[in-house]
Structures are given as structure tokens and as C-alpha cells.
């Protein structure tokens, strides 16, 4: 058995950097496109609504791993040569946009209709009505679910390991193969994920409790 030295730990931390980066790109990119999806899903035009609903149900009905595979090899087919991390980041962005779009749709639809009607009566146009009236309230309602999805996304980036991308889980696999100490290594890797995800989960649960109390 090999020893777990500084270089092994450093390699894991290098992987952690990519895990955090992928999560951040997926969450921010997914947030931007997710807003578009949510607005399309709640728009007045039936074609937009249906397209957004189809997009969401395809991403929610297929494994994240398959989404990674299809985007990864699909981009290759287009003849565009981009680096592996960019292909993976695009896949996570698309995945996150579908899930965040659905979460925020729920938030938007939870806002009482009177708010929209009042905004209309005041002569606000669509952009201002959404930006100043509906969305701020919808985001507040959706915050616990959004935080919950962020945890899902961080855990989900581990699947990039199966495509061969070296993030935390893949780094753990490599170190485990070198040192023949799988339990220790995957224990450490699991602990690192836990340290990142647990505070977020607790924060999400606290937000939810606070809201449940306020609603009572």
C-alpha cells in the first residue's frame, strides 16, 4: 500500500478546484438560461410554453450521465474542436437551466395573480412587471429549492469523472489506483464533498423552515 502524502492531497485539491469551477459555471450559466426557460414556460404564447415544457421534461427524464455523453460527443460531431472541460461545462449548463427553469416557474406561478393585474393596471410593461414585481418575490419563494438544486449540481459534477474529466471524484479514482487504498481515498473524497454540500443543505433547510413558519 502506498502512503497518502502531500502530492496525493495536492492532486485531490487540484481536482476539487475543477469540481468547484464546473459547479460555478453550471450554476451561473444554468441560472441565466434557466431564467429564459422559466419566462418562456410562463409566457402568454402557447408555442413558447410548450417548447419550454418539452425542454424541461427531456432533461428531467434522462440521466445526467447521458446528457454529458450526448453533449460531449455531439459537439465533436459538429466539427467544433473545444476542450473537454468546455464541453462538460456546456452539458452542466443545459442540465441546470432545465431544473432551475422548472423551480423558478413554480416560484413565478406562486405569485398571486393580483400582483400581475395591479402591475398591469399601473401601466407597467412586461419587462418592468417581471423585473420589479414578479421575479423578486418569485426568487424569494424559490430560494430553498434553488439551494437544494445547487447541492445536486455539485454532486452531479462527479459524473464528469466517467467522461474522463479530472475533477475531484476522478482525481480520487486515480490516487486510489496508485496507492491501493480505495476506502481511505474515497472516504477523504466523500468528506470533501460533504464539507461543501452539508452547510448548503442546512442553509436551504433553514430557509424552508423560516418560510413555513411565516406562512402559518
Amino acid at each position, binding site marked *: 500500500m502506498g502512503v497518502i502524502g502531500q502530492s496525493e492531497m495536492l492532486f485531490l485539491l487540484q481536482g476539487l478546484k475543477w469540481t468547484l469551477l464546473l459547479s460555478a459555471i453550471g450554476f451561473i450559466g444554468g441560472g441565466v438560461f434557466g431564467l429564459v426557460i422559466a419566462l418562456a414556460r410562463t409566457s402568454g404564447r402557447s408555442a413558447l410554453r410548450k417548447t419550454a415544457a418539452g425542454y424541461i421534461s*427531456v432533461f428531467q*427524464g434522462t440521466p445526467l*450521465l447521458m446528457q454529458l455523453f*450526448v453533449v460531449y460527443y*455531439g459537439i465533436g460531431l459538429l466539427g467544433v474542436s473545444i476542450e473537454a472541460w468546455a464541453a462538460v461545462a456546456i452539458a452542466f449548463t443545459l442540465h441546470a437551466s432545465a431544473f432551475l427553469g422548472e423551480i423558478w416557474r413554480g416560484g413565478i406561478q406562486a405569485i398571486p395573480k393580483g400582483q400581475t393585474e395591479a402591475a398591469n393596471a399601473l401601466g407597467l410593461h412586461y419587462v418592468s412587471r417581471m423585473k420589479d414585481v414578479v421575479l423578486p418575490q418569485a426568487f424569494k419563494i424559490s430560494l430553498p429549492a434553488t439551494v437544494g438544486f445547487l*447541492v445536486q449540481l455539485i454532486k*452531479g459534477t462527479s459524473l464528469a469523472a*466517467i467522461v474522463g474529466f479530472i475533477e475531484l471524484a476522478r482525481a480520487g479514482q486515480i490516487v486510489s489506483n496508485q496507492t491501493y487504498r480505495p476506502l481511505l481515498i*474515497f472516504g477523504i473524497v*466523500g468528506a470533501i464533498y460533504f464539507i461543501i454540500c452539508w452547510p448548503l443543505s442546512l442553509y436551504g433547510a433553514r430557509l424552508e423552515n423560516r418560510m413555513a413558519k411565516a406562512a402559518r
Partner: protein
Amino acid sequence: MNYVLDFSVVFEKMPDLLMAALATIGLALAGMSLALVIGVIGVAARTSTIRPLRAAVIAFVEVVRNTPFLVQIFFIFFALPMMGIRLNPTATAIIALAINGGAYAIEIIRGGVDSIHKGQVEAGLALGLHKAQVFRLIVLKPALRAIYPSLTSQFIMLTLTTSVCTSIAAYELTSVAQIIESDTFRSFEVYFTITLMYLAISWMMMGLFALISRHFFSYPVR
């Protein structure tokens, strides 16, 4: 780039893929059933008066829900042989799915049990119902109705998660697809096809769950 899509190799392997899809459904069903068992036992343990037991259940739920399934399945894959348990990859995958799904099931079922007010049970008894009737009609059915949507969507997530079991070479749709891919190099065609198969599986399950819900949980109460 003059890549020509060629799905013929995928169609040639269709019987293999269909068998593997059945294996995926089997894996999912086995994982779900065991997850339900773990969920019920876990909730019982979580409400027990023995404090260390309660703490252990809470720790189990938090650890499983805040680490990736991929890391869990690797850990279990290497941990079982060290405990002297030798299982094939597919059986190992079922255990990993059960543990993962079980942790989520505990949280969901606990929420359902909490949703039944004590006053309801007392009211049922006051109306002259038997204890068994109170449990079946006032505790069990409303609790099931309350948790049914989240439990079934969790089950569909678990079904999609089975694809990760390819990482320990369990027999299921993704691992079979990976073998076909390495034989034919038709990566996109293979994965695109099985993505559609997964979509069909999850839509079928959603339909089935909706049917069950309409039969058992529709109003007026039968």
C-alpha cells in the same frame, strides 16, 4: 467535417440494448423496494427513544444526501470485499441504490408521518373506529397520499441514477452501451439511442405512478 451518422450498428445491437433496458428497470425496482424498507425502518429508528439510534439515522441521512452517488458506489464496491462480502457488481449496485434511495425515503416518509395531527387519531377513536381502522384510514392513507408525489419523483431520480452503476460495470443499459461504443466507435449514435430509451422508461414510470395515484388516492375516498 464529413461525419455521417450511422445508426445501423445500433439497430443491429437492439436486442442487447432492450435486454439491458429490462435490467435497468429491474435494478431500479430492486433499489426502490429496498429503499422503501430502509425508509420505513429508518423512520421507526428516528422516532425511537434510544438517542444514539436517532443520531445514527440522522447522520446516515445527512452523509448520504450530501455526497455524490458515484463516490458512494465506489466506497461500497471496495468496502464490501474488505468486510468479507463478495458480491457481483450488479448486486453491489443494488445495495448502493438501496442505501442512496433509502436515505431520501427516510426524509420523505418522516415528513408524511409528521403531517398527521394527533387530533385526527383521537377524533377517529372518538367516532368509534377500531385501532386498525384508525391506522389504515386516518394515518396510513393520508400519509401515503401526502408523500406519494415526492416519493415517486425520487424513485424516478433513482431510476435515472442507475446509469452511474456502469462505473463498477454492473449489468444495465449504460454499461452495455459503453461496450457497444468501444466495439463500434459510434459514440453519439449509441448514447443518443439509449438516452431516448431512458426517456421512454421514465415516462412509462411516470404514467404508471399517475395511474396508481388515480386509483388509490382519488377523491371521493373509496
